[in-house]
């Protein structure tokens, strides 16, 4: 009884603290998003002064043209690949940060990992463009070292898009995994070893299961924005860089067909939510 009262009054006293966040979310996210839902059912933007009517046509367009589905599948694959590379690169980095390095060196490496976060996205992408193109930094450097002549021109290719996206998003994976790995007591690792498990067995049976929440959080934080990404595909992918996200962007900035762009966005949102909903019980069981 007393506990229940206490927790209820706890909620009431927490309200002033929660209010700003909810107010902000209502104004900044909910209202524009509702407007977009509204647009997605219109034939024309009301802003241009043209006559408009309600329609399901924008959603029907997705299903009538196989191009959209193809692009959506390509984007989902891109999201999956980038997420996997982020795990492959980010998890070991997080492990070394959390369990191997101590003190000063940890802080220094941590800074290096966070650095891409602090640099402007466009600057980051264009610096990759300088590295990856023919006669660029990578090409020149490799030819200076290697005895034979090779041509490295990764610019405007699928790998370039992957490299750019992985570079942008890997800090999320490092951070979420670092936090869960940090929380794992070192004595658990020692207990496993004392029971006869090799380092690899301890990793597989103790550390990875215990850091699953970090992996899942990192994967969700990366997968969702990558599937809808357009900047990296456009700049680093060139002609090969047409993805679902770039098509949506086109509707808004080039074709000015906002209703179709909005409808395509919501289809993407629905697909991503379904994927997360299906994946979460599977991942929970694995953890």
């Amino acid at each position: 009884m007393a506990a229940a009262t206490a927790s209820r009054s706890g909620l009431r006293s927490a309200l002033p603290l929660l209010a700003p966040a909810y107010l902000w979310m209502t104004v900044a996210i909910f209202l524009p998003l509702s407007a977009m839902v509204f647009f997605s059912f219109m034939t024309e933007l009301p802003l241009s002064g043209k006559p408009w009517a309600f329609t399901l046509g924008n959603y029907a367009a997705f299903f009538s043209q196989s191009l959209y589905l193809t692009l959506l599948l390509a984007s989902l694959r891109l999201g999956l690949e980038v997420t996997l590379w982020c795990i492959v690169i980010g998890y070991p980095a997080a492990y070394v940060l959390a369990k191997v390095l101590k003190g000063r060196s940890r802080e220094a490496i941590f800074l290096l990992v966070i650095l891409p976060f602090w640099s402007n996205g466009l600057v980051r992408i264009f610096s990759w463009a300088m590295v990856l193109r023919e006669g660029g930094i990578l090409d020149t450097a490799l030819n200076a070292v290697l005895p034979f002549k090779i041509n490295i021109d990764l610019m405007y290719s699928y790998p370039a898009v992957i490299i750019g996206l992985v570079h942008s998003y890997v800090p999320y994976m490092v951070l979420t995994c670092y936090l869960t790995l940090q929380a794992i007591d070192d004595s658990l690792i020692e207990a496993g070893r004392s029971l006869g498990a090799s380092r690899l067995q301890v990793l597989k049976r103790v550390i990875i299961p215990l850091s699953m929440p970090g992996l899942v959080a990192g994967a969700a934080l990366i997968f969702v924005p990558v599937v809808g990404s357009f900047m990296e595909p456009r700049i680093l992918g060139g002609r090969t860089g047409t993805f679902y996200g770039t098509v949506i962007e086109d509707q808004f900035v080039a074709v000015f067909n906002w209703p179709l762009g909005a409808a395509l966005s919501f289809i993407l949102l629905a697909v991503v939510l379904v994927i997360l909903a299906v994946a979460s019980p599977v991942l929970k069981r694995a953890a």
Partner: protein
Amino acid sequence: MAGVQVSNVSRSFGAHKALDDVSIDFADGGFYALLGPSGSGKTTLLRQIAGFDFPDSGRIAIGGESVERVPVEKRRIGMVFQNYALFPNMSVADNVAFGLSVRGEAKAVIATEVQRALDLVQLGKLGGRRPHQLSGGQRQRVALARAIVTKPRVLLLDEPLGALDKALRVDMQIELKRIQREIRITTIFVTHDQEEALTMSDRIGILRDGRLVQEGPPEEIYDRPKSEFAATFLGDANIFRGDSTGSGIRLADGTAIAAGAGATLTAGAKASCAVRPERIRIATDVGASESNANMLRGQVSKRIFAGNNSTYFVERAGQTLKVIVQNTGIERLAEGQDVVLCWSPESTVLIAG
């Protein structure tokens, strides 16, 4: 099964010497207690034996073979950690099964062995629980079951009974001792509890600031401590300081205290004598048969009644002496009463320094 030989092991963390030239021979199948104040290096010593950490110098052998190049998982040791270190992502049964399962034992074998180990620590019905659903004492027992189920050569226990209440603690002491006898496993047991060390172990080692102060069977350490520290750390002791007379000491006020036969020190050097409180007889006047006994006069300043015994605090020449008397119901001395303390030279230990 195998004994453990620690020879001249030192380990420093920065400028701090956590272990300083420690040598101990842990006999095969023996039960060895490591005692010492907090920070004296007990855990550090266990970690060297387990292979989690490596000595700066010295040598460690298990079963007669140097383990310098043997990684933890090949040393075949069982360890119970100070904080249990149970795997939170596994059930109790899976925790216990871990060591067998990484070894690739058959499922059926694992199941029976795990059940047997859980029954041994009286947790047979809790196999399905998660560690966070257990009490502190239950967690310690799971940790013990997990450590012994793999049949290790050496069992390392870092204060395994620290979290238990008195009754369960005594139960577990008996249980642990029974298990240890049954599987005849070399056991090294770290504890803060001197009574636990005295009752359970075949031998005791006392550590202080990374050095082995004294080691030997419990009776020997209790009856013949080699230093004031050993005398006061394991059990209670009255310490007298003075100048050596060769087979005893002379206090500052001229009183001579004789030590038992065989005690010899260079006369004139600084020395002290230790006497256990229960070895001293307290009376209101000098008895007849006490001709060769050590004798001091004092005044009772305080008496603490503890059921089966009483502790008297006796003031003498600025020193407070402790005397423990069994409650026979005959004599009770009042506070403020003048008394005579007697004890035999055989009960007196002469300590250099």
